């Protein structure tokens, strides 16, 4: 089970992910609503894994991912975006994302992906 930071600009999505991850026995150590906050909270909390929305105000998810990976190359980040933005997948993978979730998602598959990334 891991210590997870959830990054998404909508509270609804953060709450949904929190519920799903909590039901899988994970510890939600923090939340962030934009990329800049995500980078700051990562430095502060040093979570085992981050779920990162791609489209966010101020600093987007890809930029935040790059900043986190620059500071901690071993960081485990799963990107999360809406249907129709799958083109971002390659960019995210090239930038160091370990996994990718497309919204809308289903709880069992999210937990499976988190488990895979945490154990890798």
């Amino acid at each position, binding site marked *: 089970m891991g210590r997870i930071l959830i990054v998404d600009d909508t509270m*609804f999505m953060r709450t949904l992910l929190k519920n799903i991850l909590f039901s899988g026995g994970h510890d939600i150590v923090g939340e962030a609503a934009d990329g800049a906050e995500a980078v700051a909270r990562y430095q502060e909390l040093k979570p085992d894994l981050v779920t990162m929305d791609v489209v966010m105000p101020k600093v987007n998810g890809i930029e935040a991912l790059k900043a986190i990976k620059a500071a901690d190359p071993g960081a485990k980040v799963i990107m999360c975006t809406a249907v129709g933005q799958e083109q971002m997948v*390659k960019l995210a993978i090239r930038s160091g994302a370990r996994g990718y979730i497309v919204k809308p998602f289903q709880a069992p*598959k999210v937990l499976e992906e988190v488990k895979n990334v945490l154990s890798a």
Partner: protein
Amino acid sequence: MAIMKSVPIKVEHEGKWVPATMGIGEDRIRIGAPLDCEIPYRSMVDLEAKKNQVTIAAGPEAEEVYRIASVEKVLSVLKKFVITRCSAYRLNAFFMSPAIRGGVLVQDAHWEKGAIAVMKTGIWFISQENQVCIPLEDVTGIELTRREIQEKDLDVVKIDHLIENEVVTSFILCPKTTLQVLYNFLNEATQGSRYEGELDPLTGQVAMLVYSGMDSSSIENMLKLSHKDLDAIYEQLLTTGFAEVIYIRKEIQLTTKGVRYISDAVKSSSNQ
């Protein structure tokens, strides 16, 4: 007609499964006694498969139905002949299925070269390695979109569909003109499951949470809804055909007898 090799099968005959033989030829199949019939591929309009059975429908109105059970190897050959030779909208294409499962990208997903046949009740993909069927009634979305393939941004048809309640995405890649025809064809074939109206934001959020696998009490907590409010929203989702009841949970309170039992039980445990 070319010589056919006979293989043992079981066929459904008068409501019972009976042993028979089947020959698979170049242009037809022949089923021995008790059916004693030949079915040309071009008369076949539909193929459904589950576990070790296939159902073939033939005739202009799909009025002739044949249910055949056999080992996987035999059914695989039969399906290949039917899919590639039956009466259906068919094209050569690349496909990737599944590419996304439950919102998570399938890491080892790859493009397979093969053929696609759109039949009466389903879309079949067939390649050297795979035979995949997507029943049209399980299709939840059809979209003409673009995807980066070998450094090129190419048009693809994206099909979202259900497999045992899991939402799966598959992609089809073929020349653009054919792709548009395929898209229009699939769009029309799955028109029945489209909803033209719009849900209010709260009902939409509840639907999203159900999609994600949340149960009633999680939804009530997350959206700060009362049991009664959630029931009303569920009713709306049921009326629009967006959802179905899987089970009804009871909320109970203890009777005098139950309260007495609990009180006695607490007393006896505290006296020990």
